[in-house]
C-alpha cells in the first residue's frame, strides 16, 4: 500500500508539472523595453504600447473597442484621413467631389497601392467594402456610420461613386472610419478573412498575430505606399487591464507607453513622479459627462421647474476639482469647445442652491426617490454621482446612486427605465450629427422629451452639407437644450492624461477620444 501511495503521489506531481509545462509557451523574446539596439545607440526597435482594454474582434467593419479601432488604424487605410477636428485630407482617395443634390460623392483613387496580400488596390476594393455595408446593415460600422448608404459603383478602375439616399453631411467623416478591404481576398475567404491571421489592409503596419487577452503584434510594412518610415520594426499592443500593473510595467521599462481609455486616473499619476524618462501627455479631450433625464409623463423631470432646480443644484466646478483633480473644465452645454457649432457666448451653467431649493419647493416635485444611475465603465461615474447626489439632496431632492454593469444600463436606457443616468459622450470628428440625431431626434434612450423646434433644427442640419450652416444649427440646438434644462445636462469636460516615453512620437491622441498609433516612431531630439 505504501508503494501504491507513493506511486500515486508521484503521479499527481508529475501531472501537475506536465500541466504547467504544456501550459507555458516558450518565453517570447519580445520583451523589448530599454534594451539597447546593438547596431546603434537608440532604444530597441520594438515598441510596446500598453492598452487598458482587450481586443475582441478584428473585423474592420465590426469592431467597437478602442484597441480594435487602433488595430485597424495600423493595418488598414481609408479613403480620406481625418484630423478629428473636422478637416479631411487625401489618403487612398486623392480627390473627391459631391453632387449638387448632396447625395452622390465621387472619389478619385490612388494608383500605386497594394494590399498586404499582394493584391492591387483599385475601385473594385472600394466597391466591395461599401457593398458589404449595404448588404449587411447590422455591421457595427454600417449601423453607426452609414445611415443612408444606398449604392456604390465603380465609374472606372480608379473612380468610385458612393450614393446616399438622403443628403448626409458626415459622409467624409464616415469615409475616414471605413477601412478598405481587398475584394479578391474577401471573395475567397468571406467573413473568415477577419478571423484568420491574414493581414489584409494597405496600412503601414502588417498584423502578425493577436493573442486573446495578451497582445497584438505588428511589424512594419516595408512596401507602404505613403511617405512614412518608422524607426520601429515591430509594435506590440499589450492588453493590461489593471492600471497599477500597467503603470508599474511602464516604470520598469517593459512598455514604452500606457494609453488608458478615458485617461489615467489622476490619483495614480503620482506613481510617475520619479520616472524622468516618461512624459505625461495631456489631451484636451472633447469627452464630456452628461446626465440624461427621464422626462416622460410619469417622471419628476416632466416638470421643467424640477429640471431647472436639478441644473442649478449642481456645482460643476467642484465636481471637476473634487472628482477629477481639477483636470477638466465645465462646458456650457453638450456642444463642447472641440465641436463644430460651439458658442463661447452661451452663458455658463449657474450654480445657485438657494434658488434651486426655492424653485424645487414651488414645483410639482413630491419628494419621490430619484435614482441616479451610471455604469461601471464610466470613468469615476460612481464618485461623481455620489457628489452630485449630495448636492441634490441639499436642495430638497431625495436621490440615491446606483452603479450597474454596462449591459444593464444599456437595457435601462433603451427601455426608458431610469430617472437619470450619467455617461460620457463625445462627438466624433467634432461633429454633433450622431449625438443629436440619435439622442435627441430619434430619442434612442427614451428620455420622452419632445421639442418640435429642436427636431426641426436637427432635420434642417441633416439636409445640408454646408458646415457653416450645420454649425449654426448645432449651436441653436444647444441653446434650446439649455433653455429647456433638458433632456441632457452636461456636467464636465475632461482632460485625458496618458503616459509616453520621451522620444516616442506619432501616437495620435485625438480630442474626440479616438487613438491612432500608425505614425509611431522615435525621435531622439525629443528626449530632454
Amino acid at each position, binding site marked *: 500500500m505504501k508503494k501504491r501511495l507513493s506511486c500515486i503521489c508521484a503521479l499527481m506531481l508529475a501531472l501537475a508539472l506536465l500541466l504547467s509545462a504544456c501550459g507555458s509557451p516558450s518565453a517570447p523574446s519580445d520583451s523589448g523595453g530599454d534594451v539597447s539596439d546593438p547596431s546603434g545607440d537608440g532604444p530597441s526597435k520594438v515598441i510596446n504600447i500598453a492598452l487598458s482594454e482587450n481586443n475582441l474582434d478584428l473585423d474592420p467593419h465590426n469592431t467597437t473597442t478602442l484597441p480594435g479601432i487602433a488595430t485597424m488604424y495600423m493595418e488598414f487605410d481609408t479613403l480620406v484621413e481625418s484630423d478629428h477636428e473636422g478637416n479631411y485630407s487625401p489618403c487612398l482617395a486623392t480627390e473627391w467631389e459631391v453632387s449638387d443634390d448632396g447625395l452622390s460623392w465621387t472619389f478619385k483613387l490612388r494608383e500605386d497601392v497594394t494590399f498586404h496580400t499582394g493584391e492591387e488596390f483599385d475601385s473594385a476594393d472600394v466597391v466591395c467594402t461599401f457593398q458589404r455595408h449595404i448588404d449587411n446593415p447590422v455591421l457595427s460600422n454600417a449601423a453607426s456610420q452609414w445611415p443612408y448608404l444606398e449604392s456604390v459603383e465603380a465609374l472606372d478602375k480608379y473612380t468610385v461613386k458612393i450614393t446616399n439616399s438622403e443628403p448626409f453631411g458626415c459622409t467624409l467623416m464616415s469615409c475616414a472610419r471605413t477601412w478598405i478591404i481587398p475584394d479578391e481576398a474577401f471573395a475567397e475567404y468571406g467573413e473568415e478573412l477577419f478571423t484568420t491571421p491574414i493581414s489584409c489592409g494597405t496600412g503601414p503596419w502588417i498584423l502578425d498575430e493577436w493573442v486573446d487577452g495578451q497582445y497584438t503584434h505588428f511589424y512594419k510594412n516595408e512596401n507602404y505606399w505613403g511617405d512614412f518610415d518608422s524607426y520601429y520594426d515591430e509594435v506590440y499592443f499589450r492588453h493590461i487591464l489593471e492600471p*497599477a500593473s500597467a503603470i*508599474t510595467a511602464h516604470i520598469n521599462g517593459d512598455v514604452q507607453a500606457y494609453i488608458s481609455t478615458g485617461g489615467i486616473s489622476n*490619483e495614480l499619476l503620482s506613481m510617475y513622479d520619479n520616472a524622468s524618462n516618461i512624459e505625461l501627455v495631456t489631451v484636451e479631450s472633447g469627452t464630456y459627462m452628461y446626465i440624461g433625464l427621464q422626462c416622460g409623463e410619469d417622471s419628476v423631470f416632466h416638470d421643467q421647474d424640477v429640471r431647472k432646480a436639478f441644473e442649478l443644484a449642481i456645482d460643476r466646478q467642484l465636481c471637476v*476639482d473634487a472628482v477629477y483633480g481639477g483636470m477638466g473644465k465645465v462646458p456650457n452645454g453638450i456642444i463642447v469647445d472641440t465641436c463644430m457649432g460651439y458658442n463661447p457666448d452661451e452663458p455658463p451653467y449657474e450654480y445657485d442652491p438657494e434658488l434651486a431649493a426655492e424653485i424645487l419647493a414651488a414645483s410639482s416635485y413630491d419628494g419621490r426617490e430619484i435614482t441616479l444611475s451610471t455604469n461601471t465603465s464610466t470613468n469615476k461615474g*460612481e464618485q461623481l454621482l455620489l*457628489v452630485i447626489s449630495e448636492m441634490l439632496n441639499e436642495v430638497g431632492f431625495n436621490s*440615491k446612486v*446606483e*452603479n450597474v454593469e454596462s*449591459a444593464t444600463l444599456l437595457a435601462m436606457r433603451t427601455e426608458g427605465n431610469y430617472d437619470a443616468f450619467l455617461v460620457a459622450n463625445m462627438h466624433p470628428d467634432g461633429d454633433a450629427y450622431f449625438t443629436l440625431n440619435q439622442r435627441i431626434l430619434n430619442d434612442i434612450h427614451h428620455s420622452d422629451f419632445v421639442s418640435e423646434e429642436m427636431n426641426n433644427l436637427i432635420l434642417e442640419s441633416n439636409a445640408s452639407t454646408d458646415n457653416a450652416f450645420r454649425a449654426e444649427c448645432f449651436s441653436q440646438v444647444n441653446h434650446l437644450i439649455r433653455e429647456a434644462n433638458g433632456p441632457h445636462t452636461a456636467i464636465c469636460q475632461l482632460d485625458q492624461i496618458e503616459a509616453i516615453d520621451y522620444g516616442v512620437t506619432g501616437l495620435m491622441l485625438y480630442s474626440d477620444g479616438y487613438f491612432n498609433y500608425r505614425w509611431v516612431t522615435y525621435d531622439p531630439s525629443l528626449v530632454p
Partner: protein
Amino acid sequence: MNSKLIFKRMLHSKFFMIGFITCMLIVIFAVVGPSFVVYDAEKNSLTEQFLKPEWLSNGWQGHILGTDELGRDEFTRLVVGARYSLAIALVVTVCSAVLGTILGMIAGYLGGAADAIIMRMCDVFLSIPNLILSIAIIAVLGTSTTNLIIVLIISSWVQYCKLSRNNVLVTKKMEFVSASKCLGATNSHIIFKEIFPNITTQLIILVSQQFGNVILVEAALSFMNLGISPPTPSWGNMIAGGRTYLTTYPWLCVVPGMALMITVLAFNFLGDGVRDVLDPKRT
C-alpha cells in the same frame, strides 16, 4: 457532555479563548461603535480628500485612519462598514445553515429519489463557479442588499447540506432511531427530535468556520461591483474602492483589508476552538 465539562474545555482551549474574546470585541465594536463616531460615514467632505492617517495625534476627534477619495472619514466607515459586513454574514450564515441542514436531513433520511435530486442539486451548484453565478444573478435581480444576501445564501448552503446528509446517514442506522420507528414516531419527529440533536456539534463547528468565509465572499463580490451599493460602506466595497489608489494612497485598501483579515482570523480561531471544545475525539 454536560455543560460543566464544556465550560472547562472552553477555558482550557487557547484557540477558543483568543477567538471568542476577539470576536466579542469586534462584535461590540460593530454594534456600539456607530453611535460614538464623530463623522458621517456617507457624507462627502470634498475639501478633505485623501488625508493621511493621523492615528491618535488629534485624539478621537481626528481622522484616525485618514480619509478616502470623497473626504469621508476612513475610521468611521470602517466602524459602520463592520456593522453591515457582520450583519450580512450573520443573516447569510443562519439562513444557509437552516436551508442546507433541512435539505441535507431530508436527503439523508428519506434517501432514494429525494436524496438523488438534492445531491445532484448540490453537484450542480458546486459545478458553477460562485462568482459567475453571482454576477449573472445580480445582473438579473439588480444590486441591493437583499439580492446580495440571496446570492450569498445560494452559494453557501451546499456545505451544510452535504455535512448534514452524511451525518444523518450515519445516525439513521443507530439503534435508538430504529427504536423510535418501531414505537411509531412520525418522520418529522424522528428527523427533528431524534436525529437533529446528534448532528448539532458538527453544524456548530461548520457555522463558526463558514462565518468568516461569507465575509470573504462578500468582499470578492464587492470587488466585482456586485456588493452593497454606494455610498453605504462595507469592508468589501471599501477594499474595492481603495484598489485604484493602492500605490498612491495605500491605507485606503490596506486598512479595511486588515480589518477584514483580523475579523476572519478571529472567527477562524473561534471555529477551531469550538471544534476543540465540542469534538470528543480531540480530548
